[in-house]
C-alpha cells in the first residue's frame, strides 16, 4: 500500500505507467524500482529458488533475493531496476541464464 499522508516526508513520483507481471497488467510510477511497484500492488513473491518463494530482502542491490526476468533478461535485481512503461516482468525460477 502506498503512503498518502506522512508526517515528515512528501513523495515525488514520475508519471504513472503500465507494465505486466506474469501476464497481468499493473500500474506503477516510472523510475521507481520494479520491486517497489510490485510491492505497492501487493506482490511479494518475486522468484522461486529450490522450490521456495523469495521476495525483496535488502532493497539496495546487495543480496540477490529479488532476481527476476525483465523483458526476457534473467537475474535482474528488481529492487534497483527503474520501472519503464511496457516492461514485461516475470517470476524467475532457478538460476536464470546468460545470453551473449
Amino acid at each position, binding site marked *: 500500500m502506498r503512503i498518502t499522508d506522512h508526517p515528515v*516526508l512528501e513523495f515525488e513520483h514520475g508519471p504513472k505507467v503500465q507494465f505486466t507481471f506474469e501476464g497481468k497488467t499493473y500500474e506503477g510510477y516510472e523510475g521507481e524500482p520494479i520491486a517497489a511497484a510490485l510491492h505497492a500492488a501487493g506482490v511479494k513473491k518475486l522468484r522461486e529458488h529450490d522450490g521456495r518463494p523469495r521476495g525483496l530482502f535488502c532493497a539496495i542491490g546487495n543480496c540477490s533475493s529479488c532476481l527476476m526476468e525483465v523483458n526476457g533478461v534473467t537475474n535482474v535485481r528488481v529492487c534497483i531496476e527503474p520501472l519503464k512503461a511496457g516492461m514485461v516482468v516475470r517470476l524467475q525460477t532457478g538460476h536464470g541464464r546468460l545470453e551473449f
Partner: protein
Amino acid sequence: MKFSDIVVIGGGPAGMSAALAAADAGVRVTMMDRGQVLGGQLIKQTHRFFGSERERAGTRGIEIVKILRQQIAENKNIEVLKNTECLGIYSDGVISYETDGKYGLMTGEKVIIATGAAEKMLQFENNDLPGVYGAGAVQTLMNVYGIQPGQKVLMIGAGNIGLIVSYQLMQAGVQVAAIVEAMPKIGGYKVHASKVARMGVPILTRKTCKAALGTDHVTGAVLADMDEHFQIIPGTEEEIEVDTICLAVGLAPLSELVSQTRCKMRYIPQLGGFVPERDENLELTAKGYYVAGDVSCIEEATAAMIEGSIAGLSAAIATGMNHPEIIGKRDEWIKQLENLRSGKTGAKIRSGFAVMNGGK
C-alpha cells in the same frame, strides 16, 4: 584510462564528506556510486541526528543529504559518476568499474574506500519467506518510495536501527506488534526506546523469533524466550499474527574491495567483523588507500561523516596539500571523533580499537 588525484568509492555520508573535504583542500576528486542518486543510506533517515552542532545534530538525515549534495554539485573539483559500480582494485592500483553496462578503468593517486555495510541475517525457520526484510529495506520502501512494507510488523532487534525503524513504521501508518531483543537490555539509545514504548509498542528482551509462518509469504511468527546462553527455552513458544518480519540484528562492513588492496584485515567483533587495520588518519596498511564510514567500523552516520572528512583531508595532504591549515583541520576532526566516542555509548568502539592497536 581515467586519472584523478583522489578516487572516492561510495557516495554515502562518509564518501560524500570525504570528497568534499579533499576537494576543499584543492585536489581533484572522482567519486563513484552504484546508486542513481548520491546519499547512500542517509536518504532514508528521517530522524534528527545526534551529536553536536558541528556534526549537524538536530537535523534530519534527509536534510543533511540535501546539504551535502548541493555542496558537491557546486564544487568544481568533484566529478561524480552515478550508476557506477566498482568491480575491483588491482595490485597495480587500477580500479575497474561498470557504468550503464560499460566497463571502465581508472587510477587515482590516493583512493578512499567508503563502501558502507550490509545487513546481517538471523537464523530461524522460514527466514527466506517473502515478507522477511532487512530493516534497511523497510526504510527504503517506506521512506524513499512511499510504500508500506506490510500492515503489522515484528521487529527483531532493539538496537538503534530496530528502534528508529519501528518509530518510522508507526509514522508510515504501520502497526508494530512488538520489538524482540535477545539481549537482556535494550541496545539502542533509551530515548528512542521510550518514544516507541509510549506509542504502545512492547519491547521484549530475552526474546527471539524462532520461526516465520506462512507458505507464499509471512503470515505470522513464533516468538520464544531465551536463556542467558541465548538458547531458546522450550515451552515458551507463542505465535503472533504479523505480515512482516523486520531484521535489525546488526551490520557487517562491505569489505570485499578493501581486502583487494591487500591491506591487513582483522576480525574485531566490536567493530562489526572483518575490518581493515588503519592508522589515526584512516590510511590502511596498503599505503595510499584510506577508509571511512561503516566499512572501517560499524557506527552512527555522524561518525561516518567525520571519518569521511578525516580520510578526505588525509588523502589530500598525502598528495602534497600539506599546508599547516589543512593539517590542523584534519587534526581537529580527529579530536572531534575522539570526543564523540569518549562516552559510555562509545565504549564498544573504543575496546575494538584497543584490540586493533594492541597488535594482536
